[in-house]
């Protein structure tokens, strides 16, 4: 699978998790793509941690407003019924449990629901930005990540080795190979890519894996 296809499968599958009326924060990168796949009839409210609710689609070319960007600094729009606020209020919303779902990427995620997403000591230290608050504060934390690193190493681990973003907060992990829930110490395979066997998935997963009795195939078609 090429990277773009993986990202498409993951974003599409995560979109199914959203319910009408949910307040959702989408991380930069892959999570941002989730917005494209939201099923018709489901209206969600996107929260942008730099200070607003009601994040809308990209502006038409030439209509960009430097005062209206998402948390990645990209020009966006605001929908009618949106609201702007300062960073203190934005994180009161986030930390206070007023975001229903936060969707973000991972360097590593483990069988205890721990997430590592913000630094590789000595190599890459971008900083945690709003991720620690989002993962601790949101009612539901969904991690969307490629199943392995570029070198084919597992990213779904027994225990994270990199510095953590938060402890025991991840609720669901979606990769191009499957959908996994967390039961402390184990990941439960809920859905799998139809072209892969459970054993093939297990071979690239370090976390202890159980298969749900209701295991079903992921929808992977665009």
């Amino acid at each position, binding site marked *: 699978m090429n990277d773009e296809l993986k990202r498409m499968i993951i974003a599409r599958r995560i979109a199914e998790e959203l319910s009408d009326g949910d307040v959702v924060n989408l991380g930069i990168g892959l999570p941002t793509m989730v917005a494209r796949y939201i099923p018709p009839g489901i209206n969600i409210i996107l929260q*942008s*941690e*730099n*200070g*607003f609710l009601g994040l809308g689609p990209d502006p038409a070319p030439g209509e960009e*407003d*430097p*005062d*209206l*960007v998402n*948390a990645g*600094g990209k020009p966006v729009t*605001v929908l009618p019924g949106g609201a*702007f*606020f*300062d*960073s*203190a209020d*934005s*994180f009161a919303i*986030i*930390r206070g449990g007023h975001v229903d779902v936060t969707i973000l990427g991972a360097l590593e995620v483990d069988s205890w629901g721990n997430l590592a997403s913000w630094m590789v000591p*000595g190599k*890459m*230290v*971008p*900083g*945690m*930005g*709003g*991720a*620690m*608050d989002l993962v*601790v*504060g949101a009612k539901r934390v969904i991690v969307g990540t490629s199943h392995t690193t570029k070198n084919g190493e597992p990213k779904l681990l027994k225990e994270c080795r990199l*510095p*953590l*973003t*938060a*402890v*025991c907060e991840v609720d669901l992990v979606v990769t191009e190979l499957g959908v996994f829930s967390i039961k402390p110490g184990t990941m439960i395979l809920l859905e799998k890519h139809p072209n892969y066997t459970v054993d093939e998935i297990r071979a690239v997963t370090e976390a202890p894996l159980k298969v749900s009795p209701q295991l079903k195939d992921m929808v992977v078609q665009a």
Partner: protein
Amino acid sequence: MPKVLSVPEAVRQVMDGSTVMIGGFLSCGAPHELLAELAHRGVRNLTVIANDTGVQGDGIGLLISADAVTNLITSHIGTNPETGRRMIAGQLNVELVPQGTLVERIRCGGAGLGGVLTPTGVGTIVAEGKEEITLNGRTYLLETALRADVALIKAWKADRRGNLVYRKSARNFNPIMAMAADLVIAEVEEIVEVGEIDPDQVVTPGIFIDVLTRGVKTDE
């Protein structure tokens, strides 16, 4: 009543060695004119408190590249590789703080609070060296107040009393930093007469503002 100064006059009040809060989230809502002038003037040894360090060649990035900053308290440096290089080379001390914790610490500084208890960072390296307090079975970190000598903020409009309104997502850290520094310099796009801003729509009351300076308009 704030003084209305030119950008160079305003920036003259920032001394070498000052602790400076800088508003903005990446480029959005950052006091670009003040930052450019400050980098140009060659100020040294600043402690900067800001959400991020922008990108190379813009905003706070100008201060980083101009070697003006010794200490940095921030939530994210990933957009400016120069910041990371200087940190790894030992030229820049960086304290990384979760964004929600950073803004609360600044709010505490402005609101006369000593600190807050936050669940964010518990069980991570952010917790190292910090007091942990457990209330009703939940563990919190005690995060302490931050204040600065100077805050450089950006607003959309000011009236002559210094009452400020912001535009869209350019609000971010600006109103919170306006409360937490001894000297507050606001770069604004327009200065209007007293009475032209409805008291119900003021976001930052003028009592917080010491200096107003005119920047460029971003919405034109």
